[in-house]
Every structure is written in C-alpha cells, then in structure tokens.
C-alpha cells in the first residue's frame, strides 16, 4: 500500500481520470446481487426468525428446540445415517465406476441404469421402497413365498430395522450422484498411470490405493462435500417410510413448521443444519487439501 507517496511530477501533470468501475466488478456484480437476494436474504431472515420475537433478541426458540424430546434422537439418527451411509456409498460408487472403466459389454447401458435414481424425486423413491418394506410389501411377500414369516420392518418400536430400511432406500437413491462424479473423475485420469503401476508389479489393491484414489481425490472431495450436505437434508425418504417414527433433523424442521405451526423453532433447526453443513465442508476442504499444492495436472 502506498501511504502518502510524495507527488511525482508525472502524477501532478497527469490529467484527472474518471473513476471507472473495474471490469471485474461489472462482471461479478450481477451474480453477487442475485446471490444476495436469493440466498443471503433468506439466511438473514432465518437467523432473525430464530433469534427474535416481538420483544427483540431471545433464546427461547433455541431452548424449545433443544428441549423437545425428538430433537436429540433426530440429531443422533441424522449423524448415524451419515456415518454409515457415506462410506458405503463411496465404496459402492467407486466399485461401480471401476467396473464401468474396465469396459464390460454394454457398459453404457449399465451406466444409464445406475444413473436412473438420480432422475427420481426423493419422495417417489421413498414410496417405491415403502411398497417393498411395508407389512404387506414385496419383501414380506417374497419371504412368505419361501415359507418364511414376514417381519414388520417399519414398526415404530424397531429402530434398527427402520434405520436399515431408510439406509437401503437412501443408498439406492443417492449413490448415483457419487457414481457420476467418480466416473467423470476417472475419465479425466489418463490410462497410462494405471498401466505403469501394473507393469511395475502393483496388484489391484496397490493400484487402487497408490494410484487411482490419489488421482481421483479432487473428484472425491467434490462428491464428499455434496453428498454429506445432502445427507444432512435427508427427509422425504424417511418421511415416506417411517413418518415421524424415525426422526431426522430436516423432518423435525418440517414438523415444527407445518404440524406445530412454529416457524421460529423451525428456523432454529434449519440454522443447525446450515452451521453443521458449513463446518463439514470446511473440514473436508482442509482435510483433503493437496499437501503438495498444484501437484495435480
């Protein structure tokens, strides 16, 4: 920064220039305004709604949220779902992408079939799986066909089986997003690296660990952030399958807003999701940062 530079002859002689708006500002200006209106304003509204009543600032809504008997189970379920689901999804997606890379017969058809769930709304996906898991659903019919006694998979008192049902439905529904990102990432890696590793005696697992996964890191990072944020928002599938019996944080937001008609507590819950999502993204970005900056490509 220049603090009180002594006036140089050139500076004093130079004609006064019109202050022009830098082109960078002109270019990003519209999108900044757009973002502020569409994203920033609702966030501000949400914060105000969660912390302000007629008398001004208050923590009452946050207290009510925390003291609600469903709140902590909802947090626990959401976290549990994420911790179990994300690794499974990534393992599945990477396995599927590697299978596609080996160019089996009809690999394009496989890819499209595997991507279909992406085109389905999550509520529709929930209803599909409800048709499978309910007491008279396809699963129990199949079991009875084998002469086995059916099980109430979605019974309100069986948390474990409800969890598994929600998990399976979510796996089916949302793995394709990870798959598509991983497939795109794999396509960007030249085949030579894998071939070189093969020639130098690396086994499949060594190649995966030392070559493919490190090269895939940028794609995995994107997929991980997207999937985790979306997993915090899991809602419609659980709602369709279990109603309120398997509470999740976004489900609670919905219940407070529509069922209990309390938008303030709902806003507080929404803020919880916002903060947790942001913290996780920052964590991922830092944890997966390339130690050798600029090392890739």
């Amino acid at each position: 920064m220049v603090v009180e530079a002594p006036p140089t002859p050139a500076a004093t002689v130079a004609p006064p220039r019109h202050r022009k708006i830098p082109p960078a500002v002109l270019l990003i200006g519209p999108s900044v305004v757009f973002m502020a209106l569409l994203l920033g304003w609702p966030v501000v509204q949400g914060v105000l709604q969660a912390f302000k009543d007629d008398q001004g600032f208050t923590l009452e809504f946050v207290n009510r949220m925390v003291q609600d008997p469903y709140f902590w189970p909802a947090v626990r379920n959401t976290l549990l779902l994420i911790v179990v689901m994300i690794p499974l999804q990534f393992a599945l997606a990477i396995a599927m992408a590697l299978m596609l890379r080996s160019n089996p017969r009809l690999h394009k058809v496989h890819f499209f079939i595997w991507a279909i769930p992406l085109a389905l709304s999550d509520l529709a996906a929930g209803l599909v799986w409800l048709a499978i898991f309910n007491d008279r659903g396809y699963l129990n019919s199949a079991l009875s066909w084998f002469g086995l006694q059916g099980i109430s998979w979605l019974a309100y008192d069986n948390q474990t089986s409800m969890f598994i049902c929600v998990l399976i439905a979510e796996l089916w529904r949302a793995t394709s997003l990870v798959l598509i990102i991983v497939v795109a990432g794999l396509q960007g890696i030249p085949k030579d690296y894998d071939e070189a590793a093969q020639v130098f005696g690396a086994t499949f697992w060594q190649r995966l660990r030392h070559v493919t996964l490190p090269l895939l890191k940028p794609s995995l990072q994107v997929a991980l952030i997207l999937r985790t944020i979306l997993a915090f928002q899991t809602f419609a599938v659980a709602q369709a399958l279990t109603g309120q019996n398997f509470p999740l944080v976004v489900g609670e937001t919905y219940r407070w807003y529509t069922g209990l008609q309390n938008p303030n507590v709902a806003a507080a819950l929404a803020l919880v999701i916002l903060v947790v999502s942001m913290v996780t993204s920052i964590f991922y970005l830092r944890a997966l940062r390339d130690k050798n900056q600029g090392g890739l490509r």
Partner: protein
Amino acid sequence: MADIQISNLVKTYPGGSERATDDVSLSIRDGEFTVLLGPSGCGKTTLLRMIAGLELPDSGSISIGGRDVTYLPPNKRNLSMVFQSYAVFPHRKVRYNIGFGLRMAKVPADEIERKVQWAADLLQLGPYLDRLPANLSGGQRQRVAVARAIVMDADVLLMDEPLSNLDALLRLTFRSELKKIVQDLGTTTVYVTHDQSEALSLGDQVAVMRKGRIVQLGDPLDVYDAPADQFVGGFIGSPPMNFLDAAVSHDGGTLVLGEQQLMAPSILRSFAGKDVLLGVRAENVTVSNQRSSGDVAATVLVVEPMGSTVLLTVEVDGHNLKVQAPPTFKTAPRHTVWLGFAPNTMRVYDRETSMALEAK
C-alpha cells in the same frame, strides 16, 4: 533374466481396419539388446505393449524365460518399462516415482533409498528428487521414467523412445550412458525408436518394422550394409541409401545407367539382361573432379558443407544421389563431378518387389 520368444503375433485394434502388428515373430536371447526401429505408426509401441501385457494379441504367443505369458497380466511378468508418454505419477515426488516398483515389491526402505540414489546419480536427477513431476521439464520427466525402470531387477526391460525428448547433446550422452547401464545390468532389453542412429549404436540386433511387419532382423551392421529391401535402405543411414534404375548388360559384366556404363558386381552374372534397382551408400561413392576409368559423370545440384564432410546432391541419368566428399573438395552447382562406385559395396534390388537380389 530371460529370453523372449514371440511367434506369429497378430493384433488388430477394435475399430481398426489394418493390423497393428501383422504376424510378427521375433526371438531375443537372454541379455540381448534388441531395437525395434520403424517409422511412426508401424506398430512398435503395440508390439512392446503386447510383450508388457497391456494389450492382448488376437493370435500368436509370447513367452519370457520359457514361460508362456501371452495372456498373463502385466504385474505377473516381472518387467519394467519406460512409457512413450512417461506416465510418471503426477501426485508423487520424483523420489517416490523412481522407487515405485521396489515399493510395490515390498523391498526394505533403506535398499529402496540406496537404489533411488544410484539411479538419480546416473541420470543426473539428484537435485530434483524432492520435486513433483509438474515442476520438471519434459526431458527431466523422461529421465525419471528411465530411472524408475532401471532400478527394478526385472527379467525384461522395455523402453519406448526413452530419449526422444532430450536435446541432441544430452541424447548423445545418455545414449552411451544407457548402453553402459544396460550392459552392466545384463537385462534382456527391447528398445523402441524411430531414430536410426540410436538403433545402430545401441542394438545387439535391430528389427526394422514397417506397417506392422518386421521387414529385416539382424545385426546393426548387416542391416546398414545390406538392407533387405528398398524401404530399409531408405530408412536407415543418414543420408539414406541412394537408389538408381539400371540395367544389367547381356553378358552380365556391366551395369547400364542411361548412357553410361559401370562395372557390375559379380552376383549380377545371373541377372544378365534384366532391369534392376541399384542401392549405394553415400560413403561408398568416391567423388572427384578428374575422370578415372569406370567413373560415372554427374551434375552437381546442391553443395552442403557439414563440417567433417561436404554433402553433395548430384544428378545421374535423371536420378538424384546424395554423396559425400572430403571437406576440402571444391565444386559448385552445375559443375560436373566424377563418381566412382566400388562394385562390392553396391546392393541390387528387384525393381518390382524392391527386395534384395541374391545370386542364384
């Protein structure tokens, strides 16, 4: 260490109409340095990749050290390879890259370190060991690829144009360096290049390829002195072999070049009265300003002083010839010079098939 037997390899790429390798057979003895030489797109890399197991042949077989490896995956073949595209891992430092194969084979860390250091010294990579490949020049990256290949105690060393990206001086240095390294290692080596001088200087045997076939296989000097056909003669040597249309006289004793006559090599006795193609290397033609008996007159077109010699492009009977004269030789375009051909250095080819003619 092992010998390599390749028999009748045929490979057509999916979607390709021509065979990338067409019925290639090749036998390489234990410890031998074989060079695959040929123009771009003739199937050298394809053949090398099949030896490596990165490409599977449509038919034919490959065995290494007596073991049939035709369909074995690459990691079971105990090879090492320098890729034409280097394939140096971009996410790892040079040190890790060079030691990669040893690490995969679970060699103790101190031995890896020692070997990496050895290879880095040989290839002048010492200062770059802790850099990422992205921060190296193309030639340095290529040397990393070579270093990664030579640290392995592999049965077979495959190299696909490993010196292509070095400047002329470094290439010359590393060429002899590489020859020494490989001799010390004693590893059976298959080396791909399209540089004929590299092929001649490095190989124990040279396989010249064209359009997926091996057109000549032999000792470098044989390939140079007695090219099996016009293609090989034109491809090897700098300047390449000169070719002239000539006719053998009826008694078989002279060659007729348009208006002029020339002593014929003795093998031509059985081709009396036939039209042939004469092949002669620049250094086997003497050039002088005075006529002596048996000489052929030629008109000078271009004079190129090369330092150690003067390269002349001359015209004889409508054919352009490249010949060499001593650096002190004085001539100018449109002058006439006299060329002397030594009969026993001339090669004769069939005009239709362009194959070398052997005495019957």
